[in-house]
């Protein structure tokens, strides 16, 4: 059975990529919010925010904006999975001789492709708005890897929501929750400007480590221990979310 795992996943990924290509509005809407936030923070709030770094505010804010792009994009994975489960198409697949994990993996891989496309659009807009980086090819690759891992982690959380939800609103609501995390982190303002308990939360939640790592990579500075903390968080949450997603799927679909 596992001999077909790759071809089955490829066939199903092709299917859900078609869904994305035939509703390109889903990519557009998932980048509209981050681009609007980027404009607002760069041109409205940015001037008043003392970041303590030498670069322009857009250089400071872009890493957080990219994470918000992913957070708003994974909501569509929840939504598509919910539709597949409720329309009975998952049931059809599960009564067929196909590798069982391929149904979920197809959605996860599609999410990866669609979100990295969204990230590319946002980076392009940021470059137009004056974002500059002296990052080496290696640093860019590290940023890409970081964002890919972040996307995988958030996607598996979104899978839990998509499979477990009882309504389409419930399924895509996960996006609103995930979008909030970057606001209580070092993404927009330095954490030391926040009141004690909030600063403590911001300092110890995964988004801050991820943002600081990507920011350092873009600035061509050493990433220090941030990258270890970021990777530990992402891999840890990824494993837990994956196990919870598979368990939810088994419980829901039988």
């Amino acid at each position, binding site marked *: 059975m596992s001999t077909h795992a790759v071809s*089955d996943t490829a066939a*199903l990924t092709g*299917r859900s990529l078609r869904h994305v290509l035939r509703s390109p509005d889903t990519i557009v809407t998932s980048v509209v919010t981050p681009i609007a936030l980027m404009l607002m923070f760069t041109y409205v709030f940015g001037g008043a925010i003392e970041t303590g770094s030498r670069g322009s505010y857009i250089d400071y804010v872009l890493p957080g904006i990219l994470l918000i792009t992913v957070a708003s994009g994974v909501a569509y994975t929840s939504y598509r999975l919910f539709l597949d489960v409720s329309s009975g198409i998952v*049931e059809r697949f*599960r*009564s*067929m001789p196909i590798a069982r994990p391929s149904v979920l993996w197809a959605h996860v891989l599609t999410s990866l492709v669609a979100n990295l496309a969204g990230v590319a659009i946002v980076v392009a807009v940021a470059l137009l708005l004056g974002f500059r980086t002296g990052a080496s090819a290696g640093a860019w690759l590290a940023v890409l890897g970081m964002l890919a891992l972040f996307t995988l982690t958030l996607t598996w959380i979104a899978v839990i929501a998509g499979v477990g939800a009882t309504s389409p609103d419930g399924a895509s609501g996960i996006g609103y929750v995930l979008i909030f995390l970057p606001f209580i982190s070092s993404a927009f303002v330095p954490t030391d400007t926040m009141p004690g308990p909030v600063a403590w939360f911001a300092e110890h939640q995964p988004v801050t480590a991820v943002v600081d790592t990507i920011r350092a990579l873009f600035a061509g500075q050493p990433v220090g221990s941030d990258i270890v903390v970021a990777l530990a968080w992402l891999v840890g949450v990824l494993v837990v979310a994956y196990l919870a997603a598979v368990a939810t799927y088994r419980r829901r679909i039988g």
Partner: protein
Amino acid sequence: MSTAALRAGAGSSTAVRVRGVEKSFGDVRVLRGVDLDVAAGSVVALLGSNGAGKTTLVRILATLLRPDAGTASVHGLDVVAEAAQVRHAISLTGQFAAVDDVLTGRENLSLIARLRHLPDPGAVADDLLARFGLTDAGGRRAGTYSGGMRRRLDIAMSLVGDPAVIFLDEPTTGLDPQARLDVWATITRLAAGGTAVLLTTQHLDEAEHLADRIAILHEGVIVQDGTLAELRRLLPPATVEYVEKQPSLQDVFLALVGPTTGTPTPDAPAREDPS
């Protein structure tokens, strides 16, 4: 009969065999010991009211649910222990047409063909589109199809790879009378070609028209199982009465609409406008 003997004779004998199957959801005992056989090349209708457990039994046979007790085998293969092999032999059409609305009819079919690992998915798709009168619609998204076309596509998807056993869960629910007759014709052809068909329905006329055998599921057990003639014999012999035969509404509807769809009744003659 041993499993080996069953397997050896699978071509001509029992395609589906259910013995003492029980299934509960929480405190609700949905199936309380179901026995049922479906012979290859025959249509068995599973009758029952809403909530009788028809869908639960079909889901167990389609390897989507595990029975709490009892055994069920398809083609001599146990649905729990040999689920992966069972899936090669079966196909399921659920209560709601499970087609992908975003894909075209042709893409839906070739996706299933790819997932069944057939050599030429495109050709399989074209063949089935032709058999189900969907060739012209094949390039359109399934989301634009009428209810009858969706159901035809759904059943066509179930036939990809010629599975030996097909489960149809309420295949004509929500269809207009003409589309219903089309589905009936398809099912009859399937059984004639040697496929075993287990269909669930709430429509008694559907069972009467299609089924070689009829099983009535009530309160978790099969209360009767036999041919239509056998079931009729359960009641006192018919007394001959002469009654005026009124055409049924279905007769009237089909006479008016005609056997072919798509011929609109002419509108009232257009008013002459001298100006």
